[in-house]
């Protein structure tokens, strides 16, 4: 038995926890994630390495991760501990990737065991 839900009723419960107003939004989100992946692949095939390109790649990682965490996993309205931990993880590693790309010598110096 189908049980469609009235959108006004949903909003009156708690608007912030509604992941999508309709499944069409989910379809659009999927297409956005696919497009971002293809942009990444185009960069891999054609772009010469540079700070700007690396910055764009790391930004795409963060954007894709946020979309998956907020909407596919529906964590946006769930426990803030889990939500913020998940988000932090996918900010920290892209930023580290950018820093390692920018300052590899300094990292090598930092982790030398002997002078």
């Amino acid at each position: 038995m189908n049980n469609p839900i009235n959108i006004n009723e949903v909003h009156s419960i708690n608007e912030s926890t509604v992941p999508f107003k309709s499944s069409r939004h989910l379809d659009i989100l999927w297409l956005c994630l696919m497009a971002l992946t293809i942009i990444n692949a185009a960069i891999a095939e054609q772009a010469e390495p540079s700070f700007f390109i690396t910055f764009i790649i790391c930004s795409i990682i963060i954007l894709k991760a946020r979309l998956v965490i907020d909407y596919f996993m529906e964590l946006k309205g769930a426990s803030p501990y889990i939500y913020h931990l998940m988000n932090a993880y996918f900010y920290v590693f892209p930023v580290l990737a950018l820093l390692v790309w920018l300052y590899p010598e300094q990292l090598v110096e930092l982790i030398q065991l002997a002078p």
Partner: protein
Amino acid sequence: MNTQALDNSDVNDDIYESTNEITKPFFDSKTIPGNPAIWVGIFSELTEFALFFVIYFLARAHYPAEFEEGPLHLHTLAGTLNTLVLISSSYFLVKGIFALRNDRPNIAVRWLSFTLFCGACYFVIKLWEYQWNTAAGIDTNTNNFFAVYYYTTFNHLLHVGWGSLGIIWSITQIKSGNFTADNHSGLIAAACYWHMIDLAWIVIFPLLYVIR
């Protein structure tokens, strides 16, 4: 087998019929999606992947030439296809959850089957990529970049296997009527684990295939 959940069946429903329905708000601010145990597992797995990423950073800092050259020798198309397949698998999984919330277990099973199919495609593409590498003379001992590449991607491949088992289990639970519109926290747990695998690949793909 408990067939109660399938009695008010949606056997004749079109799989696309549910696409314009509104989904329920499912989690509030105190809710842990799935169950606490799965999140212990998810954060453990993410810690494991974090170690791989740290190893990548250290190796990259020490051998910059190998890491600048390495991605040029990888099969970018295979990596891209696997990313598209994993994103699609997550999308199908969410569609399955929506279908179950709307009391359409048969349609939910179909969407989850698509997710499982994507998992199988990931395996096939990865094996194709490894064979392509071998034919090109690339293995774990080629250099430090490829050592990191093989250990990271093979570890991820294993996790796709564990995730697929979780999806198979969820399908059996829906079919037996144990997961219903109002009671499917086990499916949410399996879904969160699967999305974690997707998220890990979202980081792995650019690190190994794109950044030079």
